[in-house]
């Protein structure tokens, strides 16, 4: 899932000060799971903003709405009839949702209410860690299911660097060395011989190096 973190309320207040009708727009998908932008967080942010503006002696209408997703037309259409009632939307979906909402509704400014961080997993409640950078050329079959692109600080492809010490990374002693994990995993599944096979030079054009990317699937297009 896409992992996001809450923005400080002060920052959101600064962005929407001066607006009189604000819609707080949540998303029921990834940001709900990482407790940053779901229905509950919409309620908390809306409540805090209502109290802030009331305390400032200003009448600001703040409404709440949570969509199933903000990254699909059909769900974003749900606010088509009400969007003109507002002079600002604070979207607490990931950056994708914020942008897609802004693309759909040109006349209404959309402000982000979270900081979108990475694609990752919930290790335990309150701890999310990165697992994928969407490089476009998945290597996991060769690396025992552990990604050196997202989990190695240097994104190196053929074994650990000199900074790997006792299974930890040199940039942070609490961070596992991805290549140590890969080696341990390959040993555990009896595929340690795979470690000897060099991975070829990676085509980074499918990563961000090639600019904004798109996936075209004519087989599913209408």
């Amino acid at each position, binding site marked *: 899932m896409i992992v996001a973190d809450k923005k*400080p*309320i*002060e920052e959101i207040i600064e962005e929407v000060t001066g607006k009189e009708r604000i819609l707080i727009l949540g998303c029921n998908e990834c940001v709900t799971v990482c407790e940053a932008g779901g229905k*509950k967080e919409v*309620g*908390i942010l809306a*409540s*805090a*903003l*209502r*109290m*802030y503006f*009331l*305390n*400032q*002696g200003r*009448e600001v209408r703040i409404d709440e709405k949570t969509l199933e997703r903000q990254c699909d037309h059909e769900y974003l259409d749900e606010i088509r009839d009400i969007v003109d009632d507002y002079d600002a939307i604070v979207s607490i979906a990931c950056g994708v949702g914020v942008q897609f909402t802004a693309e759909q509704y040109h006349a209404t400014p959309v402000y982000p209410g979270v900081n979108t961080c990475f694609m990752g997993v919930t290790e335990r409640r309150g701890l999310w860690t990165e697992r994928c950078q969407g490089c476009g050329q998945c290597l996991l079959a060769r690396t025992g299911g552990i990604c050196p692109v997202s989990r190695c600080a240097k994104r190196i492809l053929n074994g650990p660097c000199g900074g790997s010490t006792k299974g930890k990374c040199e940039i942070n002693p609490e961070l596992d060395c991805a290549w140590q994990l890969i080696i341990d995993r390959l040993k555990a599944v009896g595929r340690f011989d795979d470690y000897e096979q060099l991975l070829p030079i990676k085509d980074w054009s499918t990563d961000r190096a090639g600019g904004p990317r798109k996936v075209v699937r004519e087989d599913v297009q209408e």
Partner: protein
Amino acid sequence: MRLQYPSSVKIVRVPCTGKVDIQHLLRAFEKGADGAYVLGCMEGDCHFNSGNFRARKRVEQAQRILETIGVGGERVQMYNLSSSEAPLFVKIANEMHDRILALGPNPLKQKKREMALSNNQEMGVAAACGSGVS
């Protein structure tokens, strides 16, 4: 024991303090409460293991939000006691009562009143102008 505690304290019963959410606390202040406190079981005695720890974290988060928006984080507190400690219950109720008295009323109530008053005055002026014209 028939101990007395301030009549300003209104009790909202929940099955466990783990049920208390930040939204409940914020909504209380939005609706005009001057203060709110959560009374949980002693730490380590939660029937559901971590309900009171969760409540404490939520109270702390509500405190930060209320502080940021200018309502005052001190207005919301968390206390722990066991169910047999009636004198402590009364002591906490008095302590919270005194704390809120010292802090004064929820500033939002005053603002709401001021805004309603100014709206009424504007409407009054409009009505007066309207009657003048007719």
